[in-house]
């Protein structure tokens, strides 16, 4: 395997568009190199595998200094939707799939997708709120079992 990496477990803990993509891109890049991948969605990261929400993730336009939009303006109605649409267009131009297609692509690529049990309970979610491709809802102990022997990346 590339660089001696055989397995990587990537945690996705935030639910904005720009917070979810990096973890998915890391995961896809690892599979492309033949590296085994676990993805654990925790806290607001669950948005990326919530079948009602995952098509509608938005760019954070408040509290996001890298965007160079003043917080007061970022908070106005419609700004987040507008910026999100702009970014989605750029992402599509780069041939990067939208989140729902990306998650399915990763599952088809052999990446294992998991939800964090404590977070699922925190948000009162049920199994059928989450996408079909999910391999399981894990406690931390179970997560460390599947992650054993590989690297863990928190995003």
């Amino acid at each position, binding site marked *: *395997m590339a660089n001696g990496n055989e397995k990587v477990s990537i945690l996705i803990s935030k639910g904005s568009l720009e917070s979810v993509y990096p973890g998915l*891109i890391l995961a*896809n*890049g690892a*599979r*492309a*190199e*033949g590296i085994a991948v676990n993805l654990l969605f925790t806290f607001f990261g669950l948005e990326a595998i919530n079948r009602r929400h995952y098509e509608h993730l938005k760019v954070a336009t408040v509290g996001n200094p890298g965007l160079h939009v003043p917080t007061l303006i970022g908070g106005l109605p419609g700004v987040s939707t507008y910026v999100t649409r702009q970014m989605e267009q750029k992402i599509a131009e*780069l*041939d*990067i*799939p939208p989140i729902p297609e990306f998650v399915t*692509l990763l599952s*088809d*690529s*052999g990446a294992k997708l998991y939800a964090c049990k404590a977070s699922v309970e925190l948000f009162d979610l049920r199994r059928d709120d989450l996408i079909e491709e999910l391999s399981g809802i894990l406690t931390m102990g179970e997560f460390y079992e599947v992650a054993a022997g590989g690297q863990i990346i928190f995003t």
Partner: protein
Amino acid sequence: MTPTLIANHFIDLDAEGYLTDPMQWEERVAHDIATAHGIFLSDRHWVVVRFMRERYMATGCAPGIRVMGRESGVSVRELYQLFPGGPVRLAAKIGGIPRPKGCI
């Protein structure tokens, strides 16, 4: 660039083992590179390898996994079964084209 003897021909490879000149490629070269990666080329492998190569020769750009899954006639799931070490890079290497540069 290192000339390497593959299938009785001297082939120019880059540091990662990709052909630097796609015109030096032929089917026996593909078989030898695949074997070196533990792959015995079946008809399904050939569908993928030919798709990669034809796309590269036509456009100068190797497709990524998303396009392969959509347009090669082989699903993403099967692509990873055929090439567990990574379908994009291995099909490119076996097909005698440069390493694809895309992130996806």
